[in-house]
């Protein structure tokens, strides 16, 4: 007999293996070797979280109680999957186009990014999923107790509650580790998905092994098993037509609306091919999972003593034949089913809770709104981690206080009926443009209420919330309000009764309120985009040009997406508009794109609210609305060629006007420079002439005066020379006559040299230089003297122009791909947006001339040098001060 310790060891070993699998998959994905992680078979296997412990243990119990009816739970999903061309394809396409993060996000996004709907769906999902998580904990602890009970002399029965608690803690840990690794909830959780795929294989193999053992090992072949079925208590098919049809419908509905199914079906989907394979492969998986359920059930009924729990036949039948390795495998199968469901459900629910409940509360609690600085990512991740813990805690509490008495199948069905209430709003939103927010809210609330009243609350038993008299006579003796005989219709099965009334009233309210309401423009835009997702591949615009500054938007985006990602996005958008640098024009298209990127992290409603705070309210113009109307749509399609042309023209015009502006500014600057340079040349000349005349006159001068005058002449001459040197240097660089002397040198040494060289410059407050030593340890093969010249210039600039009370310069080094980025960020007031375009031009100087003490050639020289070194120096906006980025390629030879 297997000892408890061995059982725990096997469990631990299995969990450690899962950790390793998840870790390895995450690592592969990070290195970009994720081809097989995207394989359709992995996607198909990840869908198997539909088969929870309810399937693994409960299906056999269900079959032992009611015969073939158990199969309805798998027929529904089969129909949905083989009908992928109807709904799933559209759902997946929308999920990707709108960067949907959860089912609550989808509903909220469809109905005008309404957070009210997000909250309703989130609450519904949490209430509906909690019993289900409790069910998984219960099945794991029950299977532990089977091994305990089978040992007569053996170890003390383990404390079930403690087991459940440890299981819950372990699952929370795993989920937090691998489920909240990246902030972008729309990104794929490679580690989790791969671990789940492995678990899917384990549970399938386990159930098939038990089935094969029962059919060929115990019964002696298919013919024999048929005979045993014919002799069993479930030999005749007790068909209940109402339950047969409505359970098939219910499982199909739940398959689409369960938060965890939505997570793996839509959020974790990468490409439509995966769906094409899963369309037949997942029904095949379900088929194999159900194939041996009836044989195991009838053999269990035959060989096990009367009164033993049929929910555990999968374990107890092999044990009663002393097949311990098989029982162990089957135990692992059940363990896999339970854990994979809990992990994905916790991820899905935590995303919903954090995006639709925590973030909106945080947003409205902050006075400053979205544009204040500080990183939000930690907050989002923290709230997701806490939600995971909270969800599992709720499941554990439900397990503790419900006592875990009810049959597995009953709890599962209650949960299904709860989440299925989302179906009308979901399908209506996918296929009917007229579906409106009020309708969705009314339908959800109506369905949820009926479900809670007629199915969920009665499930706590007569001692629970609804008393026995209420159940029998209705509240306050009102007969037609009896929870299980609403409107006086008696004799229906409770589950069928609840499904019938909740779905009827839900759909009814949904249609009625949709027909009666007049949706907001944003809602109509979203509706058109969802329903016509295959035609509107380009999104209609929800924003008109607002008063937003690109820099404000960048500050906000950096807080949510992180610095490098936000900068890359802004840069690519600017490049698409034909602009250089990091700040694109704030066009409606750009705002739309930015909002969509953000909604991948924090959900559509929150992203919309945050962008709205900066842009200044949700505004949809009349033209945008026209685009929704079909007539306008046709005209748009008709003139799409014209449109692309005009777009191109706009882009060219923008480039031209930019160039023109730059030219004008340059010409003004050049004029200014000419007078400036003549002034600069003249001043030293004048004093040189004056003092040399004094010396020439040879008057009565003391040796001291003579020395003084001649040293003035020399100083002025040096100043002249320096000015001319700079000009010469620049013209050499520009003409490409420069010869580089590349050598190997460590970046730390170059930076040390640059900082030391600038430490003596200038008066005023001391500049504090912050550096990160570890990251600077990079070997470079380049012209180090020239590079140091650039660094010296940038540090000297910070020293001269940083106007903070305690000036501070941060030098940070990052490596991205094959590029080394060295950022020089000071805490002064930075460079105004309108001047950012010209600072690298020759002769440009922003502040007053006297203070600068140069001819405005420094940055121009820097740019030329970096060009020659194959790198780039750019101004980095939105860093809370003046910031320059030196980027240079790491040559492959020296990147090691």
């Amino acid at each position, binding site marked *: 007999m297997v000892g408890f310790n061995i059982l725990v060891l096997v469990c631990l070993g299995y969990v450690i293996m899962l950790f390793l699998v998840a870790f390895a998959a995450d690592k592969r994905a990070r290195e970009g070797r994720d081809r097989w992680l995207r394989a359709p078979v992995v996607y198909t296997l990840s869908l198997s979280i539909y088969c929870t412990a309810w399937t693994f243990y409960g299906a056999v119990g269900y079959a032992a109680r009611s015969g073939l009816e158990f199969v309805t739970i798998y*027929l529904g999903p089969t*129909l949905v999957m083989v009908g992928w061309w109807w709904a799933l394809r559209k759902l997946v396409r929308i999920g990707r186009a709108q960067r949907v993060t959860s089912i609550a996000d989808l509903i909220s996004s469809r109905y005008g990014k309404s957070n009210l709907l997000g909250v309703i769906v989130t609450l519904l999902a949490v209430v509906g999923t909690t019993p289900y998580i409790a069910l998984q904990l219960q099945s794991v602890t029950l299977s532990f107790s089977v091994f305990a009970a089978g040992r007569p002399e053996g170890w003390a029965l383990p404390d079930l509650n403690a087991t459940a608690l440890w299981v819950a803690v372990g699952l929370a840990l795993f989920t937090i580790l691998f489920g909240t690794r990246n902030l972008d909830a729309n*990104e794929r959780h490679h580690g989790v998905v791969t671990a789940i795929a492995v678990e899917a294989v384990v549970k399938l193999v386990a159930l098939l092994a038990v089935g094969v053992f029962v059919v060929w090992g115990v019964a002696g072949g298919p013919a024999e098993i048929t005979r045993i079925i*014919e002799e069993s208590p479930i030999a005749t*098919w007790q068909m209940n*037509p109402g339950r047969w049809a409505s359970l098939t419908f219910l499982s199909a509905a739940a398959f689409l609306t369960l938060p965890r199914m939505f997570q793996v079906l839509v959020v974790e989907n990468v490409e*439509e091919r995966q769906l094409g394979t899963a369309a037949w492969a997942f029904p095949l998986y379900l088929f194999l999972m159900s194939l041996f359920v*009836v044989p195991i059930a009838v053999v269990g009924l035959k060989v096990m003593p009367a009164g033993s729990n049929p929910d555990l036949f999968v374990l107890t039948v092999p044990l009663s034949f002393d097949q311990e390795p098989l029982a162990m495998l089957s135990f692992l199968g059940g363990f896999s089913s339970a854990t994979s469901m809990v992990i994905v459900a916790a991820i899905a629910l935590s995303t919903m809770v954090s995006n639709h409940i925590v973030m909106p509360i945080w947003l409205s609690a902050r006075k400053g709104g979205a544009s204040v600085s500080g990183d939000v990512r930690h907050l989002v991740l923290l709230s997701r981690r806490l939600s995971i813990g909270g969800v599992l805690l709720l499941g554990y509490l439900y397990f503790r206080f419900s006592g875990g008495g009810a049959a597995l199948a009953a709890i599962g069905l209650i949960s299904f009926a709860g989440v299925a209430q989302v179906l009308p709003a979901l399908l209506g939103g996918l296929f009917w443009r007229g579906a409106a927010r009020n309708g969705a809210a009314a339908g959800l609330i109506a369905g949820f209420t009926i479900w809670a009243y007629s199915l969920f609350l009665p499930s706590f038993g007569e001692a629970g919330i609804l008393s026995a008299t209420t159940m029998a006579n209705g509240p306050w003796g009102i007969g037609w309000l009896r929870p299980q005989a609403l409107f006086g219709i008696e004799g229906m099965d409770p589950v069928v009764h609840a499904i019938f009334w909740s779905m009827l009233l839900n759909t009814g309210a949904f249609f009625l309120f949709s027909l009666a309401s007049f949706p907001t423009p944003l809602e109509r835009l979203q509706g058109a985009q969802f329903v016509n997702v295959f035609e509107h591949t380009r999104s209609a615009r929800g924003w008109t040009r607002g008063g937003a500054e690109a820099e404000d938007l960048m500050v906000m985006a950096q807080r949510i997406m992180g610095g490098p990602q936000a900068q890359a996005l802004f840069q690519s958008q600017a490049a698409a508009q034909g602009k250089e640098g990091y700040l694109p024009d704030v066009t409606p298209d750009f705002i739309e794109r930015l909002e969509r990127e953000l909604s991948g992290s924090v959900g559509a409603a929150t992203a919309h609210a945050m962008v709205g705070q900066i842009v200044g309210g949700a505004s949809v113009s009349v033209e945008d609305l026209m685009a929704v109307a079909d007539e306008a749509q046709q005209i748009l399609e008709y003139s799409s060629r014209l449109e692309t042309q005009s777009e191109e023209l706009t882009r060219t015009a923008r480039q031209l006007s930019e160039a023109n502006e730059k030219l004008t500014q340059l010409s003004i600057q050049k004029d200014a420079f000419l007078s400036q340079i003549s002034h600069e040349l003249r001043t030293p000349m004048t004093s040189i002439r004056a003092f040399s005349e004094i010396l020439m006159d040879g008057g009565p001068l003391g040796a001291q005066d003579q020395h003084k005058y001649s040293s003035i002449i020399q100083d002025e001459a040096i100043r002249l020379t320096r000015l001319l040197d700079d000009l010469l240097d620049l013209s050499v660089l520009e003409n490409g006559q420069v010869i580089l002397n590349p050598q190997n040198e460590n970046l730390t040494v170059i930076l040390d040299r640059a900082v030391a060289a600038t430490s003596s410059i200038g008066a005023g407050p001391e500049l504090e230089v912050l550096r990160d030593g570890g990251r600077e340890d990079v070997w470079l093969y380049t012209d180090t003297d020239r590079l140091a010249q650039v660094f010296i210039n940038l540090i000297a600039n910070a020293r001269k122009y940083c106007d903070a009370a305690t000036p501070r310069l941060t030098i940070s080094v990052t490596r991205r791909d094959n590029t080394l980025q060295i950022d020089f960020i000071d805490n002064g007031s930075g460079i105004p947006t309108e001047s950012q375009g010209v600072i690298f031009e020759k002769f440009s100087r922003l502040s007053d001339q006297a203070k600068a003490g140069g001819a405005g050639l420094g940055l121009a020289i820097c740019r030329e040098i970096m060009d020659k070194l194959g790198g780039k120096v750019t101004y980095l906006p939105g860093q809370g001060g003046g910031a320059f980025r030196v980027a240079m390629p790491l040559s492959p030879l020296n990147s090691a």
Partner: protein
Amino acid sequence: MTPPREPLFLARQNYRRRRLADAARLVPVLGALLFMIPILATSGGGASTARGGMYVFLVWLALIGVAGFLSRRLVERSGAASPAPGDDNKGGEPVRENG
């Protein structure tokens, strides 16, 4: 709703693909019908679980086969590269790939 310049006749390949999609849409309807037949068959009472089970599982397997055949053809015809433009996609820009 239908745009006026929808072509009246389609090239053979497009025509076949649309009919393939029609067939794919029909599969779940057919499956639902076949799965509901036991309601009629058992209304007389006394059907056998063994034979009923055999029927359900055979229908199931047939559905998997048909769905497999159709979805492979559909994915192939929509072009190997994802995202597959839908049959009713009138040459818009392909959807941006995320992640």
